[in-house]
């Protein structure tokens, strides 16, 4: 393994946040990471840099500055319109070699989790996935990365002493976004796309953004989830109404997905998504272990079920014994309209 000497390591400075841009807008996870990066940079006496790649993204630099970036590296090119892992990885590797960041963090989204592992291998760097905690070791100055494994049943703290940059992905909504400071300025560093960056260019034929915000489980403060007890597609319409009233997303157990009542993108659990939300409302979900590992890290778990003895009713913080088809409509009525 190629390791760095102390002198080589000291050449690496600053904390980088790789921005996530969707449909021309900076995603919330980037703002959250800028907040985390600020604390790390302060502990290291260094700067926060944001890297933004895309088409027409130059105008986003101001928003990155407002959330705490001291410098913004902009790579703005029409060939970066869609997400091509290989091209963004080439660009990032080149920028890392040129500017030598000490720490690099990115959202643990489908895009971040495709891009950063590629970059980590090419640059001979360690990478920790899905971190829930980042801190600087006061003795060594190393980044201490804490992450859940085995469905959140164990927390591991990971360090990467001999390689730079130290890389981590962080799930959306784990870190708190700082308040935006309008008018805060950052130095803009414009970098071109090189010819070699696009040597592996796969063609993106179509991009489909769902209008249904209810599917974005990762970003939701509230998830209203349904299982076998929801009985069918119509039952999920009821859950959608509740989710919409609460500004939340709709989740589902594997049983409901396998029955064809709701698409797989909504599945929470071992073979679906792992969520960590403020409030998880489980309606008619018995709570197989495979479901529990996907949602047990939520702050407040509410279960609604006729059967008071299901595993989920036992583990929930609040267990409501009753018919979800009677209780959910009452709840929708009781919630004040915005």
């Amino acid at each position, binding site marked *: 393994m190629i390791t760095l000497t102390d002198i080589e390591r000291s050449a690496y400075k600053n904390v980088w946040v790789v921005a996530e841009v969707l449909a021309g807008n900076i995603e919330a996870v980037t703002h959250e990471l800028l907040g985390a990066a600020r604390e790390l940079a302060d502990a290291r006496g260094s700067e926060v840099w944001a890297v933004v790649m895309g088409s027409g993204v130059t105008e986003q630099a101001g928003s990155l500055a407002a959330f705490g970036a001291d410098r913004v590296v902009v790579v703005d090119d029409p060939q970066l319109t869609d997400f091509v892992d290989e091209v963004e990885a080439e660009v990032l590797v080149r920028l890392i070699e040129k500017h030598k960041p000490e720490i690099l963090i990115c959202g643990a989204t489908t895009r971040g989790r495709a891009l950063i592992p590629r*970059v980590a*291998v090419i640059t001979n760097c360690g990478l920790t996935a899905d971190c829930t905690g980042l801190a600087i070791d006061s003795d060594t100055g190393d980044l201490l990365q804490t992450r859940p494994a085995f469905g959140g049943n164990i927390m591991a703290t990971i360090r990467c002493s001999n390689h730079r940059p130290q890389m981590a992905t962080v799930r959306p909504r784990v870190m708190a976004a700082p308040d935006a400071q309008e008018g805060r300025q950052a130095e803009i560093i414009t970098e071109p796309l090189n010819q070699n960056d696009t040597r592996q260019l796969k063609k993106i034929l179509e991009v489909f953004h769902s209008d249904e915000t209810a599917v974005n489980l990762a970003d939701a403060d509230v998830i209203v989830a349904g299982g076998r007890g929801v009985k069918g597609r119509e039952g999920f319409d009821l859950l959608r109404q509740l989710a919409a009233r609460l500004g939340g997303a709709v989740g589902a157990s594997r049983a409901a997905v396998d029955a064809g009542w709701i698409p797989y993108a909504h599945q929470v659990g071992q073979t679906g998504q792992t969520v960590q939300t403020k409030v998880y409302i489980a309606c008619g979900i018995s709570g197989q272990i495979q479901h529990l590992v996907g949602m047990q890290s939520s702050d407040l778990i509410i279960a609604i079920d006729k059967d008071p003895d299901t595993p989920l009713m036992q583990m929930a913080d609040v267990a409501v014994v009753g018919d979800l088809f009677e209780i959910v409509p009452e709840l929708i009525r009781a919630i004040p309209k915005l």
Partner: protein
Amino acid sequence: MKIVVCIKQVPATNDAKIDPETKRIIREGLKAILNPFDTYALEEAIQLRDQFGGEVIALSMGPPKAEAVLREAISLGVDSAILLSDRAYGGSDTWATSYALSRAIDTIGGVDLVLCGKQAVDGDTAQVGPGIAAHLDWMQATYVMAVDEVQDAGMTVKRMHEDGYDVCEVPFPAVMTVVKGINTPRVPTLKGRLASLKIDIPVWKPADIGADVERLGLDGSPTRVVKTQPPPPRSSSTKRIEGSPEECANALLHELRLRSIV
């Protein structure tokens, strides 16, 4: 088409019990199973072979007992299997694991497509698939939810994202990781089970794959786990609400107000 499917043996959570105090899964004494996501990668590989010809090779790295998941792959219809097992591989992080697997894929030779599950359910990193692609300098597609078209030169696939999907053309050779929705895995046939008992599964050591041992195992891993601990326990008490639908709804509303959701 020559397809390699990378699979992993992981602890099973099926029989797990919840600790009544911490409300978390008791990990001790769990059986070892094939990573659930890998069953979709195996099924996709078998379907592609049956439709377009070629062969499917299952590849795993792990202790000698990981051979069990390779035999399971054979029982499903995979043509052959290879196990990477040696002390030198032990303690590998995702960098070193993807290096070892990439060396094995290079040694197999002539591979068009590598399929992996989107992640393993024990580590949950999703880093090994893209890591293999990077080591091989191949192109990649992650979170693949559908194969739309297969041509001689590559494949057109749908990649799942949080906010929808995209459709991309990926030239061969390529590495793809698949999600659950892509297919419905088959169950083993009797013939498959018999084949899985008979087949000889070669064990490849670092020298067999031309791997630099300094890039394997703990020494070859940039990351170090410095400590592990249980997560903060959940409160062990459950607040039970019973009554008329209206009373239940009002009690729930109160809980949501406490959390500033409403």
